[in-house]
């Protein structure tokens, strides 16, 4: 199946054209192949330099050894043919005796047959070895040099020679070798092998030297180095060609495919017609990369799908919450003045939930012509659960109130009802009062709610510390006590939830009831609406930029004076 896909893909010229244009767009500045080959070439150059140096040294060493060997062999042969006992006779001969000439002739033969440049016998000046006197001197017939005559005296070439002459005379060694192959000498590179000629007493009487030219060796060595360089250059070219082809095949081609696919995916955001792991079938890291990209593409597409779904879901929830906010708001009496034809009292209330929907609520309604029921309540927690609980509580409380029960009876009955079906241990704090409008007599009960605030006519707002019962819905069988307040015309009543007293600034400071009372008294003779606005702006000033943490609900009732 994979094979089939491969063939199909390669047989699509349209696809290939598209890829080519994209490749141009994303062309790298320097090809990775060029970089890789550059590295290998640098390595090869270093390698060939090292090989050349090692080769040069070994070659020089081996050839020198061979030359020295030959020279010493010649020297020893010469010594054997030389009649040591006659050395003093030769020295005294003046180079003309028959014996001397025959010895010189045999030495000349040896010089030519052994391929040496010079063979000579010398006696150095033994005081400082700075001068040498030639006893014998022969020269190869193919050489351009001229021979030194018998008794010729010349300066010792350098200190190296002096030292070696000295060692041979003083018996410190039996043979010495001088190598002169550096560029600074005026003659051709050569070696000189030296052996002592010893008399019957074992003392050195003269030194026999064999000199061989090494120009041949230098020539061979240069050829050798040249060959190494040639091989290295050939190897480099070969490596460059082979490596280019190899890298292109196993590396660049699949990587280019991956690059193209990544670029295609970022533009089109859908799965490719052919999986990358099918197009790139390397069994190495590149293959793994291709597989990873396949997986990544699949996961991104799945993720985007999920995200789209989640976003849609969120939008749906948000729409529903908006609707819920509207429903909740419409559950609370929100048209002011609510009773336009009742001049005996004025009432104003507001609720600002911290989230879309809240757990706070206020309520007011006429039970009958003379009785106004007021409710201020706060459900534990916030958001949707609190809002659901709030809806139930509001309806239950209103139903019991409309049955004509007293505040304590309403709360007791509501608690029993709510407790019977409250598995989540949610509860609601409720302040509920019923005002007899004609007399101003307020009967109220408090189920765990904040203290109400009262203002006597022309007086100041003050907390009214009423008796508290337990919250509603918390525990079955709770009983609630009620109390009465006689409100004179001109009195005001302010009800609120803990969102007001516990409004918190960014440093976790609570607004507190004291600040609330102060805000109420800013303009205590204002209308209920003005008073609520004062409290609200005071809270806003206090909390500044801190997020509103709890629902904020307030209600203010004013019992108007009769003549107004």
């Amino acid at each position, binding site marked *: 199946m994979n094979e089939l896909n491969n063939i199909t893909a390669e047989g699509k010229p349209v696809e290939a054209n598209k890829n080519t244009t994209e490749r141009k767009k994303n062309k790298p500045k320097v090809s990775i192949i060029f970089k890789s080959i550059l590295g290998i070439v640098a390595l090869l150059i270093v390698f060939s330099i090292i090989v050349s140096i090692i080769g040069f040294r070994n070659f020089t060493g081996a050839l020198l050894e061979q030359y020295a060997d030959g020279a010493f062999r010649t020297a020893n042969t010469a010594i054997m043919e030389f009649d040591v006992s006659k050395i003093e006779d030769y020295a005294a001969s003046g180079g003309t005796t028959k014996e001397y000439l025959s010895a010189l002739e045999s030495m000349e033969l040896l010089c030519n047959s052994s391929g040496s440049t010079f063979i000579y016998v010398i006696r150095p000046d033994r005081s400082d070895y700075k001068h040498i006197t030639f006893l014998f001197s022969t020269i190869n017939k193919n050489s351009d040099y001229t021979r030194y005559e018998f008794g010729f005296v010349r300066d010792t070439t350098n200190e190296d020679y002096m030292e070696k002459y000295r060692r041979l005379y003083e018996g410190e060694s039996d043979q010495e070798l001088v190598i002169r192959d550096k560029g600074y000498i005026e003659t051709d590179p050569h070696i000189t092998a030296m052996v002592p000629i010893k008399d019957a007493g074992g003392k050195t009487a003269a030194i026999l030297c064999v000199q061989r030219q090494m120009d041949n060796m230098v020539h061979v060595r240069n050829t050798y180095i040249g060959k190494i360089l040639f091989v290295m250059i050939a190897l480099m070219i070969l490596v460059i060609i082979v490596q280019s082809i190899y890298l292109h095949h196993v590396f660049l081609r699949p990587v280019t495919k991956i690059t193209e696919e990544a670029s295609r995916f970022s533009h089109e955001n859908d799965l490719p017609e052919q999986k990358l792991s099918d197009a790139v079938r390397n069994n190495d890291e590149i293959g793994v990369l291709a597989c990873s990209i396949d997986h990544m593409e699949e996961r991104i597409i799945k993720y985007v799908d999920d995200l789209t779904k989640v976003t849609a879901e969120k939008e749906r929830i948000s729409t529903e919450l908006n609707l819920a906010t509207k429903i909740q708001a419409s559950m609370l009496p929100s048209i002011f003045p609510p009773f336009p034809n009742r001049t005996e009292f004025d009432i104003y209330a507001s609720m600002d939930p911290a989230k879309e929907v809240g757990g706070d609520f206020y309520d007011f309604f006429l039970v009958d012509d003379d009785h106004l029921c007021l409710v201020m309540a*706060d459900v534990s*927690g916030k958001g949707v659960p609190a809002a659901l609980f709030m809806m139930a509580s509001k309806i239950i409380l209103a139903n019991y109130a409309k049955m004509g029960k007293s505040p304590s009876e309403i709360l007791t009955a509501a608690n029993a009802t709510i407790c019977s079906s409250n598995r989540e*241990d949610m509860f609601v704090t409720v302040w509920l009062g019923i005002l007899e409008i004609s007399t101003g007599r307020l009967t109220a009960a408090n*189920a*765990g*709610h904040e203290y109400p605030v009262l203002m006597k006519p022309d007086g100041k707002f003050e907390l009214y510390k009423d008796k*508290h019962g337990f919250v509603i819905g*918390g525990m079955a069988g709770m009983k609630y006590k009620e109390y009465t307040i006689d409100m004179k015309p001109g009195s005001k009543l302010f009800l609120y939830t803990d969102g007001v007293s516990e409004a918190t600034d960014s440093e976790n400071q*609570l607004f507190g009831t004291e600040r609330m009372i102060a805000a109420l008294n800013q303009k205590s003779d204002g209308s209920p609406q003005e008073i609520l606005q004062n409290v609200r702006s005071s809270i806003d000033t206090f909390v500044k930029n801190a997020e509103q943490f709890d629902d904020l609900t307030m209600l203010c009732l004013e019992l108007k004076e009769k003549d107004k």
Partner: protein
Amino acid sequence: MTIKSKKDTGKLTLTLTGRLDTSTAPNLEETLKESYDGVTELVFDLEKLEYISSAGLRALLSAQKTMNKQGSMKVINVGEEIMEIFEITGFTEILTIE
């Protein structure tokens, strides 16, 4: 808020520090749920509790209801501000406060 819990054969003492509100009450509920097993006496030390919201009260109420079934529960070292909240909400009626 931090919860420090100390268990001593059937007696579990939880020391609460900081603010027990909507965001931290679930932690307390979680801790309680994990450690109810075998507890016959549950003690809340509220000396370092700075604030308790209705969500926190709800957690205490749940604990009280659970302990009503399997033993006893009390709240100790209640500060003035927390005490005021307990009084306002009527929790003084259902909690054993020492």
